């Protein structure tokens, strides 16, 4: 009796293992199918990228003042991507960009040490440790001539195009930057994935750290989570890109006005969200007059669309672009009827891009992450 039981158990285990191997064996397949492309050094995608360099001056001139009046920029840029030869391996291309509706502004906010913090049960908490001096130094540096120049130049060498542009009329800091002391040495920066995944912070922060002796700890998550971390007293400053969420954050009293600045929200960088999709563009997005029409066309034809679905800045922006009649919001109920084409991925930008590439779907992404994705031949 015992022997048969043992035998049965072993059989079940072996079967389970086999089943497990079978399913896990199929999942890495997409990765391995990409191997020929991945084994090539990124030198080859860099070459087709060069036409973008010639377009760069135009792009960086026209959006200099990203005001509503900037319609010519919108009409000239959508044509540009079509000239761009497609790098091998990536079928997802930029279909719509530089639309006024798609400006993506990055904002710095220092956390107010005397904010109305509450614990998980809603009881007020007063002695939350926030390193305001450190946050101030980092923000001062970001807004100094040096920080701005480094940020604006980032990406030129690698992608032939700046990934971020300086906002016209961004706040300026010209004073001294306080070096680190023992108490202010560690700065907790809570930020959105795009500035970290695109490599911007990795390029900028070491300069700041070595110059002023600070140590910056970056937690990168979607804007929603980045703001939540600050509300729980786990960040000294945030760098995010969702105006509505930032305004709520300020209105709730969680941000502070730093000496020498006029507002809590210090917007200084911007780039564009871009609408990407399969190169053959079945929804005809390229010919749409505006990005709103493009989103309407996708919804009309029920073409697959990947949504971040994670409360990030990109997600918030995407939600604002759908035709109002659809009623798509962050709530799962709101798109329950559209699941045949609307995919709420709840994942980072990179994973979503890979998903869009695999499914031939449309996707809204920040341009910086897309260029990184493209330069790496779709595997990043």
């Amino acid at each position, binding site marked *: 009796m015992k022997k048969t039981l043992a035998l049965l158990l072993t059989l079940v285990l072996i079967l389970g293992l086999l089943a497990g191997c079978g399913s896990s064996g199929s999942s*890495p397949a*997409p*990765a*391995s199918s*990409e*191997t020929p492309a*991945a*084994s090539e050094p990124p030198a080859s995608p860099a070459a087709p990228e060069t036409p973008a360099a010639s377009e760069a001056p135009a792009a960086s001139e026209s959006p200099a003042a990203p005001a509503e009046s900037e319609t010519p920029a919108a009409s000239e840029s959508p044509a540009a991507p079509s000239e761009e030869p497609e790098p091998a391996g990536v079928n997802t291309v930029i279909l719509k960009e530089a639309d006024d509706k798609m400006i993506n502004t990055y904002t710095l906010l220092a956390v107010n040490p005397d904010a109305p*913090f*509450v*614990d*998980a049960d809603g009881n007020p*908490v007063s*002695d*939350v*440790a*926030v390193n305001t001096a450190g946050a101030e130094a980092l923000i001062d540096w970001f807004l100094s001539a040096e920080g701005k120049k480094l940020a604006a130049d980032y990406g030129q060498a690698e992608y032939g195009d700046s990934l971020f542009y300086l906002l016209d009329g961004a706040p300026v800091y010209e004073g001294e930057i306080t070096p680190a002391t023992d108490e202010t040495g560690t700065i*907790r920066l809570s930020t959105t*994935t795009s500035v970290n*995944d695109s490599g911007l912070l990795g390029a900028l922060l070491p300069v700041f750290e070595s110059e002023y002796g600070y140590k910056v*700890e*970056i*937690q990168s998550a979607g804007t929603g989570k980045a703001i939540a971390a600050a509300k*729980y*007293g*786990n960040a000294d400053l945030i760098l995010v890109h969702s105006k509505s969420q930032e305004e709520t954050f300020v209105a709730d009293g969680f941000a502070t006005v730093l000496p020498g600045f006029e507002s809590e929200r210090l917007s200084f960088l911007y780039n564009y969200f871009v609408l990407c999709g399969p190169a053959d563009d079945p929804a005809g997005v390229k010919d749409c007059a505006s990005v709103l029409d493009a989103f309407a066309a996708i919804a009309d034809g029920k073409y697959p669309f990947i949504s971040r679905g994670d409360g990030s800045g990109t997600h918030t922006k995407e939600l604002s672009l759908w035709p109002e009649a659809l009623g798509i919001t962050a709530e799962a109920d709101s798109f329950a009827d559209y699941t045949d084409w609307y995919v709420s991925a709840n*994942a*980072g*930008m*990179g*994973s979503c*891009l*890979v998903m869009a590439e695999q499914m031939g779907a449309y996707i809204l992404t920040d341009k910086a992450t897309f260029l*990184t*994705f493209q330069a*790496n031949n*779709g*595997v*990043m």
Partner: protein
Amino acid sequence: MQTALQKAIELILSGDRELANILLVTARTCVSSSLISLLIGVPIGIWLGTGRFRGRQALVVIFRTLMGMPPVVCGLLMYMLFSGVGPFRRFKLLFTVTIMIIAQVVLITPLVIANLETYVSSVADTVRETARGLGFGRWKTLLLLSNECIYPIFSTYLLAFARSIAEVGAVSMVGGAIAWKTNVMTTAIMLYTNRGDFTLGIALGIILIAISLLVNIAVTVMQRRLSR
């Protein structure tokens, strides 16, 4: 897969400083958390396995239930407790290796307890009878029992280590996956996956399993030697 394997080997050979740091943090976290939970869990497991008192079964059931605690829930709990607004804020532990170890100990200890309790309760009666036959006192009986337990303790340690090195939910929650500080193998794999770099993710996965293999070989050899 082949590229991933190549990349894994390249990564190791290149002596990448960030990888070295990630490995170091991973080792610190896993070894500490698995050893601490062993230190806490083994005595409790033996006590539960041999004890005859009211509520013993209830305790066993509780620990068995805690084995199924989702890591991310454990992480969330620790995050709330040690947050800037949480009750333990003055320890300033959030986003440190220490809090990662604490979270993993909370996660793994029930596993050690339940696992050991199962074994001990199955041999306790035999050991007791043998000890009575040999005329052993309480203390000697406990020694005899502990001697019997050496083999399962090693397997339990491996279980704890495996859970700890493979775990991502809790450490990413309380550690924040901060580069050069709290980024471990699993959170690094998550980061690369989120960026869409699947190949590098798999490469790190291969390295992780290789380390796991080495530890398992070492512990198994020790187990054979010591319990012979």
